[in-house]
């Protein structure tokens, strides 16, 4: 008994294109608030069973992700779900299922941001980015999307107070001393700040999906989950406090850094205190997860299900990169030297000897060129490092597992 179409009786799913509950059989549409699953009142208290209880396994199942069995409300099939999954699709009958016991009463989220980016739009945004990628391996151009999953991620929306005393170091471009130090003490009131509440998905990944437009949050209705996967919150109070402290400190440090003269502000000493106020709210935010294989590694691309922001590091052909750098660099260096040599000859300088055409050319390409080369190469190394970090997140085994373990 899923949420059924009033006209034809088939299961409804939420369609981000029209932002309504949609019947794929007869084409009818309804507002989520207008319909309610008949199964809800019968299944609110239906417990999710452990594998042990169903199969009587004596073997300890180490895999957290497949430890529970839920019965499909339509066909009665046993669906394997993990510890915090709140909605899924039955692998037998294909109907959407909400694990009511994880989203009702005391565990019911306060808000939800429904999907407004469709699966097709998400894939189109991904392919546009992939087609523009620089030096992609051949496999990326013929990318075969393995899995696409729309998943609602749990968040706690917190209000917090942050107090800090810090000393900020900045770099000065002029003056006797390279560094200056500034003491700053203050407090910050943070309102409606989202903290990721899903333990499996790394904060590094979920943070990059931001920002979400919280003004578009709606009161929670489990019908929005139909057709998508979702997770309930599974973090502890300590984890929530730690995440809030870290984020609040980042924002405060960024603000006091701008308050100091000089460049590249950096906090070198600090003491802070962050307290989350007790009026925090629970919400679900949408994200598309797309997995593909490349260079023998699993890759997961994230797409913000509200704004369409794509988050991933696209792999590249490193051999080609080094070859291009070497060949292009040599040609540039020699070409510049030869051009300057010809120019100096035209000026009337002798070809060789002291103050000759060749020695003047060498002074530019070797002397000044060396300084430019070291500076630009150093900045290039930092850019590559940043890209490698993003690629590492894209190829994270945890994120891949988070997506792949959803049954279809």
């Amino acid at each position, binding site marked *: 008994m899923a949420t059924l179409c009033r006209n034809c009786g088939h299961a409804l799913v939420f369609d981000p294109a029209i932002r309504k509950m949609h019947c794929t059989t007869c084409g009818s549409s309804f507002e989520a608030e207008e319909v309610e699953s008949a199964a809800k009142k019968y299944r609110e208290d239906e417990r999710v069973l452990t594998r042990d209880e169903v199969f009587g396994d004596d073997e300890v199942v180490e895999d957290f992700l497949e430890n529970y069995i839920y019965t499909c409300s339509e066909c009665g099939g046993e669906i394997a779900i993990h510890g915090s999954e709140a909605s899924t699709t039955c692998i037998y009958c294909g109907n959407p299922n909400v694990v009511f016991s994880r989203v009702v009463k005391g565990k019911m989220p306060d808000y939800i941001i429904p999907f407004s980016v469709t699966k097709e739009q998400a894939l189109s945004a991904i392919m546009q980015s992939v087609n523009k990628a620089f030096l992609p391996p051949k496999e990326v151009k013929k990318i075969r999307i393995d899995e696409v999953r729309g998943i609602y991620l749990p968040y706690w929306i917190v209000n917090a107070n942050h107090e800090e005393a810090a*000393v900020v170091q900045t770099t000065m471009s002029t003056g006797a001393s390279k560094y200056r130090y500034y003491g700053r003490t203050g407090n910050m009131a943070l309102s409606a700040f989202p903290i990721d509440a899903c333990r499996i998905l790394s904060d590094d990944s979920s943070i990059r999906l931001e920002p979400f437009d919280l003004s578009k949050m709606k009161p929670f209705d489990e019908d929005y989950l139909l057709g998508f996967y979702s997770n309930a919150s599974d973090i502890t109070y300590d984890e929530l406090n730690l995440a809030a402290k870290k984020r609040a400190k980042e924002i405060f440090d960024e603000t006091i850094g701008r308050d100091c003269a000089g460049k590249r502000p950096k906090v070198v000493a600090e003491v802070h205190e962050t307290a989350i106020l007790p009026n925090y709210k629970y919400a679900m935010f949408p994200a598309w997860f797309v997995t593909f294989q490349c260079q023998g590694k699993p890759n997961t691309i994230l797409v913000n299900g509200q704004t369409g922001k794509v988050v991933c590091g696209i792999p590249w052909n490193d051999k080609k990169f080094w070859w291009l750098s070497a060949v292009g660099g040599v040609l540039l260096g020699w070409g510049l*030297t030869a051009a300057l040599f010809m120019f100096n000859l035209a000026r009337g300088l002798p070809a*060789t000897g002291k103050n000759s055409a060749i020695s003047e050319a060498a002074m530019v390409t070797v002397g000044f060129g060396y300084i430019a080369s070291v500076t630009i190469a150093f900045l290039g190394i930092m850019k590559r490092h940043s890209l490698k970090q993003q690629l590492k997140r894209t190829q994270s085994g945890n994120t891949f597992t988070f997506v792949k373990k959803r049954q279809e």
Partner: protein
Amino acid sequence: MNGFQIFEVFFLSGLSGFGIVYGLLAFRLEKRNNLGDSHGQAGLYSSSVTITDRQDKMPIGVNLDKTPAYQYVEAHAPKKATYPKAPEGNEQVRKQQ
């Protein structure tokens, strides 16, 4: 200029060129292949910051342990919050009833 010196010029100019091209290609690679590598900055969230004390151009010595920086943060360290706040501990976060 003898042959070795000419070779040296071309070798070093080639090396300089390599560094420049490497850096430029790395910039392009990062721009095209690194998508969405940013998260919400301070301006995107509702935060009200009040700075209650400023001390500019502090005289800092080499060893931070014995410098005004350490003394400053100690002297201005915030006190633990005494107003009601969210619980702590290893229990799973639940909505406040």
